[in-house]
């Protein structure tokens, strides 16, 4: 069954949205928004903490605790997670899974340690990929700003070997642009690994979600602004999916 996942970028306890990882704008309260999405048929939720300060990170733990109390669907929390202790804190606060990006590039063993300690099902490896002039994709870190030099397809395979349970794949080129998912990138990563891949970056309509399910074998589609701005509701996306023969949850 394909999953529809709203994503909430959280900065200092508020949901924000930017274009190409920059130019942030406040959207609302994470706990209320999460609860609304859960009541409207979201299959899971992803929170990305983009706070730059220690204070902001502490606020995130409180947000996670509140979300866990109110929301009864699985949710992942990523952003700024560096150590197994950080992972433990987020899971203890009530998240079901954690997303790890930069820290895994800096120290791949973190994925292995975390998978062994907390179980692969709790570890989501986030891959931010940007296309190079030769057509390949490189893994970007630090919120899409820094080129790690790693080939995204090879890195995805490595993450699977290390024990990641899922890959959250974001196209840095498409992020916030709203003209559709990067189908070529998504297909390249999905075909390279056996673990589920979540497509992210570029969703501008319900049609984009149907398209990524029809043209690639992704397990889930993640979107932010189309849901936040009420351009389209999750029930409408699911209805369109069903009409087009895409298997989604809910009646």
């Amino acid at each position, binding site marked *: 069954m394909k999953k529809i996942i709203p994503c909430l970028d959280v900065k200092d306890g508020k949901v924000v949205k930017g274009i190409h990882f920059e130019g942030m704008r406040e959207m609302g309260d994470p706990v209320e928004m999460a609860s609304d999405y859960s009541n409207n048929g979201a299959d899971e939720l992803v929170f990305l903490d983009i706070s730059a300060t220690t204070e902001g990170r502490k606020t995130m733990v409180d947000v996670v605790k509140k979300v866990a109390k109110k929301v*009864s669907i699985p949710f992942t929390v990523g952003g700024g997670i560096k150590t197994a202790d950080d992972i433990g804190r987020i899971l*203890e606060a009530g998240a079901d899974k954690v997303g790890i990006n930069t820290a895994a590039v800096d120290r791949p063993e973190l994925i292995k340690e975390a998978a062994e300690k907390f179980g692969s099902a709790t570890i989501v490896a986030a891959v931010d990929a940007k296309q190079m002039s030769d057509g390949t994709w490189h893994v970007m870190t630090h919120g899409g700003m820094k080129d790690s030099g790693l080939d995204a397809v090879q890195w995805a395979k490595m993450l699977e070997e290390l024990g990641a349970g899922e890959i959250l794949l974001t196209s840095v080129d498409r992020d916030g642009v709203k003209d559709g998912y990067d189908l070529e990138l998504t297909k390249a990563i999905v075909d390279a690994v*056996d673990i589920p891949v979540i497509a992210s970056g570029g969703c501008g309509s319900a049609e984009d979600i149907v398209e990524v399910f029809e043209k690639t074998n992704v397990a889930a589609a993640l979107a932010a602004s189309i849901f936040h701005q009420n351009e389209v509701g999750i029930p409408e996306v699911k209805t369109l999916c069903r009409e087009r023969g895409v298997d989604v949850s809910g009646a």
Partner: protein
Amino acid sequence: MIGIIDYGAGNLHSVEKAVIKLDFPTKIIAEPRDFTGIDKIIFPGVGNARKTMEMIRFHGLDDKITEAIKAGIPFLGICLGMQLLMEYSKENDADCLSIFEGAVYPFQKSIKVPHMGWNEVHQKRQHPIFRNIPNKSDFYFVHSFYVKPNDESDAIGITDYGQDFCSVIAKDNVIGVQFHPEKSAEAGLTILENFCGNF
């Protein structure tokens, strides 16, 4: 009072939070004396079968669980908590609680594990736990092993993941669900409400 078993390993908070959200009083059961004053028991399991059995034996909870079930106290096992109700688990060859006859098996090698995500539960017969839940509703699963009761009539819910497996098991006062009701939105909360309120 709804007792929630905590053997010191897993993330049991989400089940507790969901039950509190439904306005039922809860109490954590961490040692044998905590069973006092409990009307119903929820056993949410996460982790590995063998390790978990060792831990509940270490804390002296295994005999108390069996005793409570024999005394007719309504009991709900969730995920690993369902699997441990069987006689035996192939996960690290663990002897389990033997409430139901039958064992726990891994999915065939060709099937992607863990089975993680939403899937349908086909209700094989009417049961109070399914009250107000339409047949074939979706629930959220995360597991690599499944239970196979010897008596097929114990399997009251069936799910298809490459093969049909028993996703809800029930006999007398005992129910087990393979999915996570606390993570299954409205339908999941209804399961918990049915158990805590009407069962």
